[in-house]
């Protein structure tokens, strides 16, 4: 006997907690991929004053600022996803999962917007 093949299960995953789990995973992956770039940039900065200026000039580019905003959102999503999990694990809050999910998304978007406004005004 074996399990039935070709029975799609994606519909059973369309609920706030599962989507929060997925976002937590994907944002974690994005942050993990960013770490080598982060260390490369840090390595460049300490090479020389000229290299530092070059990296600073590069980071002032609007596209880089936009990418950084994405990074801030990923970081905030991962943080909020972790807090959601802690809420489940330590029974801190057992309200509606949709409310936790909405809080997670709202927090991340607010953090991203704040960063973007700061980058644009600065």
């Amino acid at each position, binding site marked *: *006997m*074996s*399990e*039935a*093949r*070709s*029975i*799609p*299960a*994606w*519909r*059973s*995953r369309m*609920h706030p*907690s*599962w989507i929060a*789990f997925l976002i937590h995973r994907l944002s974690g992956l994005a942050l993990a991929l960013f770490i080598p770039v982060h260390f490369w940039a840090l390595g460049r900065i300490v090479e020389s004053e000229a290299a530092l200026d070059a990296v600073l000039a590069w980071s002032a580019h609007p596209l880089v600022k936009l990418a950084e905003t994405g990074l801030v959102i990923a970081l905030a999503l991962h943080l909020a996803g972790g807090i*959601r*999990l802690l809420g*489940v*694990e*330590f*029974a801190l809050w*057992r309200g509606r*999962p949709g409310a936790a999910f909405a809080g997670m998304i709202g927090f991340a978007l607010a953090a991203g917007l704040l960063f973007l406004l700061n980058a644009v005004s600065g």
Partner: protein
Amino acid sequence: MAEAMLDVRVWRGAGDGAFRTYAVPRRANQTVLDVVSWIQRHLDPTLSYRFACRVGMCGSCAMSVNGVPRWTCRTHIAKVAAEGALTVAPLRNLPVIKDLAVDMAPFFAKWARARGQFDPRSGLGSEFARVPPASPERAAADAGIECIGCAVCYSACDVVAWMPEYLGPAALNRAWTLINDTRDGGRKPRLAAVAGDAGCHACHGQEGCRKHCPKSLDPSGAIAGLKRMSALAALKGEI
């Protein structure tokens, strides 16, 4: 006026089977189990499926309905097939015997592995044990005790799909109700049984069990309770 019909795709065969489509007349207050029964009685008597009570007590009629695990006796067509199309398949994560009937043996074997049997502690005496209804232990046991063993949560759980030896939400929920039963004496061995690699700590908090449980139980809350209790027991050197 032509009779309203439902296009129903039903899984036929074992694990390597396929869907077959049947036309079933639409009726008022029709449930998914009514549809499956109609097919078996009027179109194809060889269709295999399981049911018993028809009122949401026995837990035997669970199937995958449009990709979502549900108790079919209490799932109205109006809720799941508003557009006239319905797909009925066997539960995910369990071997298919034939058509819509799955082998529940692996599911209940995990209840046994999680030490899901009541283990009376010594010194209970012959009198009825008094369990104060308002005590925290009784409240925690109450929250999970209405499980009907339908395996909807087990079928909804991706951790079971990814890690076949994982005990699953129903067995862990059962262990949690027993751990909170003040008459039970098997707390330590039960905590040890659920704290292994394939036990409560494998849960990722996706909460599919909580979302889909037809009895609105919260197995993910029970699993979190087991995580806290087993971690504490391990720190104290009890398990």
